[in-house]
């Protein structure tokens, strides 16, 4: 049984688990303030950013800073709860399948959820750009190629963070604590992106990427730019270590 054929099985397990509902809710809540505050976008002369760029970047900055990490934390825990609440995991452990593969298949499902959330956000972005545009009589829409490029970068940079959240959900048995630690770990990312060692803190990656894009779009703002060294090696190391520990720890508590 290889990992790829396990992924559909893992998809099936989270049926009716309200994960999609959470994703939709988070995305909708994210864009409502952007629509309501659309007129703010015209007062950004000091920063030197065009209204349409500002509309896009502010929305995705809010997403990267809190609502996206928070939904991912909740989803990791929900994924694990489906296994634990009715001892589903016991059945899995008694089947001829390696726990490391199960663990990785679940992680792949998590990564695809994050992709879905970003895709939904792009959809909601265009919907809200349309609504805000007709309210303000201004065209807020940006070309899809640009949007997909920016969002794709954020998504890729989020993978080490997802690996860390996955580690938390696997290793901490009490769900409220894995959620609590996950959420609190998100908060300091505002502080971390302003320091020299931001690359050591995976929760800050997507937020850092989008703020540095903000710096590029706003001519009068100086933001730290992404430097691939030492970021890439550190990020890769964090991801691999987190995933390795989770694969080792997965199902251990049920096998004492």
């Amino acid at each position, binding site marked *: 049984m290889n990992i790829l054929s396990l992924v559909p099985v893992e998809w099936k397990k989270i049926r009716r688990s309200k994960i999609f509902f*959470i994703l939709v*809710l*988070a995305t909708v*809540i994210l864009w409502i*303030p952007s629509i309501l505050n659309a007129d703010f976008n015209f007062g950004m002369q000091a920063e030197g950013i065009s209204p349409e760029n500002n509309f896009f970047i502010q929305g995705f900055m*809010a997403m990267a800073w*809190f*609502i996206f990490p*928070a939904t991912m934390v*909740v989803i990791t825990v*929900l994924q694990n709860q489906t296994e634990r609440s009715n001892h589903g995991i016991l059945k899995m452990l008694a089947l001829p399948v390696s726990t490391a593969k199960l663990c990785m298949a679940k992680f792949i499902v998590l990564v695809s959820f994050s992709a879905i959330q970003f895709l939904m956000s792009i959809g909601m972005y265009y919907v809200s750009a349309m609504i805000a545009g007709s309210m303000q009589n201004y065209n807020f829409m940006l070309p899809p190629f640009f949007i997909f490029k920016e969002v794709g970068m954020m998504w890729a940079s989020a993978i080490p963070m997802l690996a860390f959240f996955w580690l938390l959900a696997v290793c901490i048995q*009490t769900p*409220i*604590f894995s*959620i*609590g630690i996950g*959420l*609190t770990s998100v*908060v*300091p990312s*505002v*502080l971390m992106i*302003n*320091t020299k060692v931001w690359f050591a803190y995976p929760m800050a990656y997507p937020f850092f990427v989008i703020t540095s894009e903000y710096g590029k779009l706003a001519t009068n703002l100086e933001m730290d730019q992404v430097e691939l060294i030492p970021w890439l090696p550190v990020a890769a190391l964090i991801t691999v270590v987190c995933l390795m520990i989770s694969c080792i720890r997965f199902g251990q508590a049920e096998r004492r």
Partner: protein
Amino acid sequence: MSFVLELRKVKRTGFLPAFLSGGILAAAVPALNMAFRSEMYVGMNAAPVNILLDANWQMMSMLNILLVVAGACILYNTEYADNAIQRMCTLPTKESTMFFGKTAVLITVSILLLMIEAVSVFGCSIHWFEESADLYMETLKNFGFFLMLMLPTILFSLVIASVSKNMWISLGIGVVCVFVATMIPSQNFVLTLFPFALPFLTLESHTADVIRNYTVAGAVETVLIALLEVMILKVRRSFE
């Protein structure tokens, strides 16, 4: 009496360690911020406590609110998880007594939380800034104000936690509320009255008049939310 009972119920749930470690984490925020980039703040022309709070309170209060939300969920989850609440309801005590017992517990640990943070802010002021005579009073005044504005948040989180038997729903609503609160512009008086937005305010960011209004509003909200819970419990009883 019900305070002691409620305190006993959170045994081994990790409630107290969570608040202790959360408090230490929040207290570490100003210290780390200063350690990393004190040059940004030392030269500023304002009272040290205000500089520190201006730079860090946003993050510290966010941690506080998340802790309060999670704490409220834990407090009620012990009732709902194995249906203990059913037994409680068949005992000669009121559900509202239980609610206020839990409120007392949550307020107590929140005071503990704020105290740890106050010590840290105080320590940072002494370490990185010149000592000033009224530092004591300033710290006390600020954290007294924070406690006042945290009361509605505490009660509101408990209301949310008590309404749903499924902890995940309460926690989800709580997290969404926290997020909404972070999106509220701090200069809009009416919007900042949202219970989850109040703890983000600092004394320095508003004039004395506005601060007085906030203090009154916080007290009124606290009472109103308490009444709301009593009503919710009454209505729920009549439907069960």
